[in-house]
């Protein structure tokens, strides 16, 4: 490893150690709970980034897939008695299969209809959660247990912290690999110009299905993990409004930027916790944020030409001016 790479990796390594040792110095269980929430929500945000940011499919129904993963895992583990790991991974696979179904519905549809289909799909799934009382317990919600495998049950917040951290790290690495691969490029090509993409031999309808399938796996896994953490899941967690909040996290962080997704999630999960008394202004705040972002920074914080890029450019301009004695740009 050369000098440059070491310089880049050092802050990352420091951050990594700081995060990995968090339970040692953050002992407040409320704070740990929020951090776990952030990590699990980040997985969902990353999956949204993949589908919306990299592939350009504006999906307004992601929450339903978190629900599909949650309910499947909860039912398999708690009601049917399947071992946890199988139930949990099964939740992801189930969500992925449903994602494939959604992808099949969307194969040939253009932008706006696609969004409407995703809303419709999400609504149908939620109503199934609500009305299929015998399986899902309907509006009362379903209780489930903490993860337990290899004879160990993750009862403490600390253990759930590490469970969530491992999930996040794995998800991040895999999604990052996907975005830098032929599959990721195909997604982006479809986003930028579906016709030109088809002309390069990419089977656009098939790739849309793949995109929804892969993305939904991660959404489902995250949803399942959340359900097992809170030991409860209910249809009200998976409304269209919830989907829009998740989408917001990805947009705020910057579509197309994976670190951005994490930052966006942190802001939108921790923010409401800090100012709980402003709950009644929540929609107003989010609405203003959405409009402001679209008007001034549609690529969010870390997207291309996003807020970070604009700040850096501004900083460089100022630096350039003072270095050259102010005023004249060479």
């Amino acid at each position, binding site marked *: 490893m050369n000098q440059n790479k070491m310089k880049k990796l050092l802050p990352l390594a420091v951050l990594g150690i700081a995060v990995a040792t968090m339970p040692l110095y953050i002992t407040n269980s409320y704070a740990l709970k929020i951090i776990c929430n952030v990590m699990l929500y980040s997985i969902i945000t990353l999956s949204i980034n993949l589908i919306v940011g990299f592939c350009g499919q504006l999906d307004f129904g992601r929450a339903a897939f978190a629900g599909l993963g949650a309910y499947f895992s909860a039912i398999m583990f708690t009601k049917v008695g399947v071992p946890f790991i199988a139930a949990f991974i099964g939740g992801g696979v189930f969500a992925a299969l449903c994602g494939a179904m959604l992808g099949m519905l969307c194969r040939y549809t253009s932008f706006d209809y696609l969004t409407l289909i995703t809303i419709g799909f999400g609504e149908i799934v939620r109503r199934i959660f609500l009305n299929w009382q015998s399986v899902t317990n309907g509006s009362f919600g379903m209780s489930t247990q903490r993860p337990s495998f290899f004879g160990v049950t993750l009862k403490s917040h600390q253990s759930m912290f590490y469970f969530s951290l491992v999930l996040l790290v794995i998800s991040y*690495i*895999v999604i990052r*690999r*996907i975005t830098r*691969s*032929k*599959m990721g*490029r*195909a997604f*982006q*090509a479809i*986003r*930028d*110009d579906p*016709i*030109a*993409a*088809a*002309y*390069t*031999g*990419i*089977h*656009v309808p098939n790739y849309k299905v*793949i995109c929804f399938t*892969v993305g939904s796996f991660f959404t489902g896994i995250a949803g399942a993990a959340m359900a097992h953490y809170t030991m409860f899941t209910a249809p009200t967690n998976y409304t269209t409004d919830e989907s829009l909040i998740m989408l917001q996290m990805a947009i705020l962080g910057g579509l*197309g930027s994976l670190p951005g997704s994490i930052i966006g999630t942190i802001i939108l999960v921790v923010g409401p916790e800090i100012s709980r008394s402003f709950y009644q202004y929540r929609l107003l705040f989010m609405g203003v944020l959405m409009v402001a972002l679209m008007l001034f920074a549609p690529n969010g914080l870390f997207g*291309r030409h996003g807020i970070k890029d604009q700040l850096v450019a501004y900083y460089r301009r100022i630096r350039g001016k003072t270095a050259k004695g102010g005023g004249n740009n060479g």
Partner: protein
Amino acid sequence: MADILRIDGISKDFYGLKALTDVSLEVKDDEIFGIIGPNGAGKTTLFNVISGFDSPTAGKVHFHNKEMTGKGITDYSIAGMARTFQNIRVFGEMTVLENLMVGMHNSIKTGLLGIALGTRKEKQAEKDAVAGCMEILEYLKIGYLANEYAANLSYGYQRKVEIGRALASFPQLILLDEPSAGMNEQETMELMELIRGIRDRGPAIIVIEHNIKFIMNLCHRIAVLNFGALLSMGLPAEIRNNPQVIEAYLGKEED
């Protein structure tokens, strides 16, 4: 000297508007074939039908002696056809190198598992693909732009990226739709050299153009379209002297 493309009696209607009427022609696998005609003659529509974007209302398309009528864009691409567009279509939010890597999409053999696990095989396939694309970029003299975002480039460079992307799919036939649009004299000469060089490297080429001098000097054979029908087809000299063609198209043109 076989036929790489053969179309028989192609007609295309759009809700009653007859865009193409009974067009037939063949293109050999080692020639540069030109298509000219006044605006609205149906040249781009012909490209659309040839490449699978539109299905013909009547007639057949044969590529590599296989009938491809009614197949989609992706099928034609996999069979070995590539294309550039009148209004340039690059992937703006991706770098120049990534644009070409997309062109190489079907040559890169990796799967989801390999990608997810980051296997050595996948990494090697990526490395090979990058090397191949850089070679094409160097050939096009834009290697230094490899990491520029395509949307930031000027028109002329974007055109080159489009051609590079087409080359990256190792096609046997390339369709160029008005490649010299917006270019000055010098750039047009370079483009002519480039197209000749590409033809020597392998693929046959069909070019749509308005620049008559360009087409006459570049192409082995030329077809003239007018009002969706084939007016004339043959060697440049024949076309140049055909009174019908002159009347329909070349009449007011200064040479």
